């Protein structure tokens, strides 16, 4: 029951606030709903061992609604419900048009995302997967910045095109199931598909996830979309929706086409590692702050994607840890971007500088987020990337070297950006700028505190992740088991 409440609460609240007029009330109701959902998630985590499978079967309008979770979906659920209060909070006290519609759309996205992570059959998964696209499309289109129409259209068509392949893949998979066909993951996971089929089926399924994450060279929608998107829109996109790609890959590729994964593993890994270096190098010379962070995010995601496909215990631990850290970092970072834009009236780095004079506290908090982003030890960023690099090194020291360049390149572009925003003595134009206000602290301090606690005492999350990593590990052993039996 609790799963159904978690899924429906945002939806019901969202519909409810459509009838509210006062912007302030709308935001408070929306925030309360997301906080309740977060508390429910904690209850869920506390009530049963994380690995236990709990399915809820309901016949809703003829659709079999099967919800459940394992370690990986629980982690994704936690991330989603942890970030959405902050995403709602980021809209507080801002001039926004149609506040009730906006918050409805945000809550609808939340519900759809929760649906993706809790679905227990491919049909439901696909419905929710596509459903996320509709509210985010309108959020981007109507609340986005310059050129939102063209950019959003491209984003929409690109991801939709990917999703169609996923649909084809799912249909193909379902018609393979014996007897009366089933879309349940538990059934689909048991299909022992011939290796030759797996090899092409891999790409049919992979494309959708690769576009969502995004993996090089399927990423071209991402920098433009991030640059144009509103703060809340980009938080949803970068914080949670990128993780849908990772989650989908874990749910579909590894259990259903393990030999396809192993067959294409090296090529995909090369794509991921190219993405790490490519995006990091490009980030260095970007003048638009949002675009810079978009490329930086792509670099981090590419490293996570590499961890995903390297597929060993340490990489899995690092990946799942990094899923949490990256989500929190992205939200904190884009909130900072919003503040910087408020204070300087620009997103162009060459026009900024010396903001530290007027806003020293903001400078300190930004620097702390930068430290997480460049993976300094004792911040959450380090644990995840360190474990990922161990995982890469287990496969090959060269992969670890390429993946590890993010340590150097990240420091290069992030510190350069920090300098261009905060340092120097160009403070004439921002004379009337004020430092942070109370709302900003409510937003930033919890995020930064979690990010540092994750780095100083990571064990609780590692324990939670351990279960998920073991789930992945089991998938891997079953996959390699098949391969070894085939080769004998």
């Amino acid at each position, binding site marked *: 029951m609790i799963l159904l409440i978690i899924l429906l609460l945002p939806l019901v609240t969202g519909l409810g606030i459509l009838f509210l007029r006062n912007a302030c009330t709308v935001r408070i109701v929306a925030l309360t709903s997301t906080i309740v959902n977060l508390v429910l998630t904690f209850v869920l985590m506390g009530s049963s061992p994380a690995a236990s499978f709990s399915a809820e079967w309901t016949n809703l309008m003829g659709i079999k609604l099967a919800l459940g979770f394992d370690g990986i979906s629980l982690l994704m659920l936690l991330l989603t419900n942890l970030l959405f209060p902050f995403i709602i909070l980021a809209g507080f006290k801002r001039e926004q048009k149609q506040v009730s519609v906006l918050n409805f759309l945000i809550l609808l996205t939340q519900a759809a995302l929760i649906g993706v992570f809790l679905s227990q059959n491919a049909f439901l998964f696909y419905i929710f997967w596509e459903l996320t696209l509709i509210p985010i499309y309108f959020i981007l289109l109507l609340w986005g910045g310059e050129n939102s129409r063209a950019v959003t259209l*491209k984003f929409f*068509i*690109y991801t939709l*095109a990917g999703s*169609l*392949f996923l649909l084809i893949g799912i249909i193909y998979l379902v018609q393979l199931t014996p007897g009366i066909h089933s879309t349940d993951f538990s059934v689909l996971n048991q299909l022992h598909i011939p290796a030759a089929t797996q090899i092409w089926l891999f*790409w049919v399924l992979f*494309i959708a996830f690769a576009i969502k994450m995004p993996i090089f*060279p*399927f990423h*071209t*929608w991402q*920098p433009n979309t991030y640059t144009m998107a509103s703060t809340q829109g980009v938080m949803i996109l970068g914080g949670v929706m990128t993780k849908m790609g990772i989650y989908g890959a874990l749910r579909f590729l590894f259990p259903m086409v393990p030999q396809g994964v192993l067959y294409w593993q090296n090529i995909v890994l090369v794509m991921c590692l190219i993405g790490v270096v*490519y995006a990091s*190098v*490009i*980030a*260095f*010379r*970007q003048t638009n702050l949002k675009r810079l962070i978009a490329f930086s995010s792509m670099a981090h995601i590419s490293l996570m994607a590499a961890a995903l496909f390297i597929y060993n*215990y*340490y990489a899995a*631990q690092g990946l799942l840890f990094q899923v949490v850290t990256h989500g929190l970092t992205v939200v904190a970072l884009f909130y900072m971007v919003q503040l910087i834009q408020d204070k300087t009236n620009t997103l162009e780095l060459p026009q900024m500088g*010396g903001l*530290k004079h007027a806003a020293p506290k903001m400078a300190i908090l930004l620097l702390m987020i930068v*430290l997480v982003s460049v993976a*300094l*030890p*004792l911040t959450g960023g380090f*644990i995840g990337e*360190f*474990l990922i*690099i*161990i995982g890469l*090194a*287990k496969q090959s*020291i060269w992969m*670890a*070297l390429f993946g*590890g*360049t993010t*340590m*150097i390149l990240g*420091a*290069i572009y992030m*510190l*350069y950006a920090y*300098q261009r925003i*905060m*340092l*120097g*003595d160009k403070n004439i134009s921002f004379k009337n700028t004020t430092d942070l206000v109370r709302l900003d602290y409510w937003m930033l301090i919890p995020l930064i505190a979690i990010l540092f606690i994750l780095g100083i*005492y*990571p*064990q609780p999350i*590692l324990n939670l992740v*351990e279960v998920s*990593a073991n789930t992945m590990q089991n998938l891997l052993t079953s996959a390699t088991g098949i391969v070894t039996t085939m080769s004998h």
Partner: protein
Amino acid sequence: MVALIPYITLAWLVPAFPLVGFLITSLAKSKLKHNQAGIIASTMVALSFITSVFLFFILNSSGQDSATLTLFNWVSAGDLKIPFAFLIDHLSLVMMLIITGIGALIHIYSIGYMHDDERVNSFFAQMNLFTFSMLLLVMGANYLILFIGWEGVGFCSYLLIGFWFKNPAFNYAARKAFVMNRIGDLGFILGIILLFFTFKSVSFNEVFAQAATLQSGAPILTLITLLLLVGAVGKSAQIPLFTWLPDAMAGPTPVSALIHAATMVTAGIYMIARSSILYNLAPITSNVMIVLGLTTAIITAIVGLRQNDIKKVLAYSTVSQLGYMFLALGLGAYSAAIFHVTTHAFFKALLFLGAGSIIHAMGGEQDIRKMGGLRSKMPITFLTFLIATIAISGIPPFSGFFSKDLILTKAFETSPWLYAFALGGALITCFYMFRLFYLVFFGAQRLSSAHPHESPRVMTVPLMILSVLSLFGGFLNIPALFGGDSGFENFLHKAVTSKESGEIHSATEIGLIMVSLSLLGIIIALAYRTYVKKSTVPAADGAPSSLIARIVANKFYLDEIFAALIEKPFGRLSDFLFKSVEVKVLDSAVDGVGTLTSRLGNLVRRLQQGNISFYLFAMVAGILLFIIFILIV
């Protein structure tokens, strides 16, 4: 005999004091009155020092060699178990005493030096954070805790180099330092990961116990030690990653004394000495260290000859002295390297603080060509600076003599050629140091606008304490030749395993010392003749000079070469990837597929207007084409 275990739990206090100091001074920054932050910060480091001294006596009287204190489990994932633990042994104690002892003096000195700075509270917060990180580095019981400190000091160094953040050049220097360190750190972390794969542990005790069973020259050990060396090269500013250190002089002078002379830059030497068991088994890496160290020592000493900024001279001299330490490490004389770390911390901190006193007196002027005649105006600074200059030149009985002579003797034991080169570097060191000394303190005052005066007591007392250490610090390790018992080396031998080396005859040893002393005498006389008798002042920048002089004055154009080979191509690559690959190829490929799809749609519509199934067909076909296109591109 004292039981060590109950007392060792106090070890956590050593890093805790500066951490508390950092938290107080940073959180209550705006509430603290003038000087309060400085007093709090200095007290905290002094308390750490007292605790370290206490631990020192406890360890000595316990008869034990080491003790481990585990605070909590930091990371535990599969086989990877990293406790947050401290290792207290003779090596870490020596480093702790240097960091907290000299650190406390530098903190106190800074109360005077930074007195007029508006962000003095931030300064002390950052200094305390640095001290905390540095203590983690030397106290960590495994490579990962060491690495936390390692990156932490790098970050604090970044903050403090760019402390005066209005100046873009300073900000650039800060970034350069951090990035160059990070290049080394990538090597370091890969080395740690390989260590973990090889030994299933990153704890010093477990790794070294297992390593002792390995064959000397095992390829995996060579690779690991080389990767760790990459980290040390970045942190300890050796060729080719040394150019950040002279630029790091942008930071306030106490920062240069603490971070860029006495402590942080010696972290690489500490780490390799700590890993002595691994390095003893990797002869190739040892040879690499000999070559790197000696080359760095000589080249940077030569560059130091033509520098005119007082802090730059000292910076090059630091790089050069670090080169000697690497030479010692390569020779397997780890305790000699740590001994030189110790004496160098005394006299180089003294030189930098003396330089700070001079800069303070000259109203911020750092060009030695504009100084002169300060001997009578600043007697205490003069005397203490003289002691430090003699010490670094290696003249007995000052501290530098004992540590440098130890390294030179080890070099001679390996090859007379090594000795000759090392001695050559030492002679150059002596010349540029006395050149600096004479130009600053002798002759007539050349800048009429300055009104030099002796610095306040809060600055001169640390100078005097450091000069006592620079004078007598060498007596910690009097070699057998002079009837001593090599106390410092024996003390360290419980923690580091130096290579056995062939003894040389004491007559030869005395002969070598005589040769080097007489050459040093000649060099000092030469410097005296040039800069005092003839009162030569180095030519102004841009004055015509010979090609070699220009090359040396411009640091062999290394910065320019770096810019041309790495920085500029990197920027161009970034532009190329974005403007050409991203926008022109990848993005327009996607757009092209989109256009193609809609054209195809039009075509189909003309044929079959209104037929929905054909629209769907067009869509799917378009997407297919798009995928094929992407796969091909």
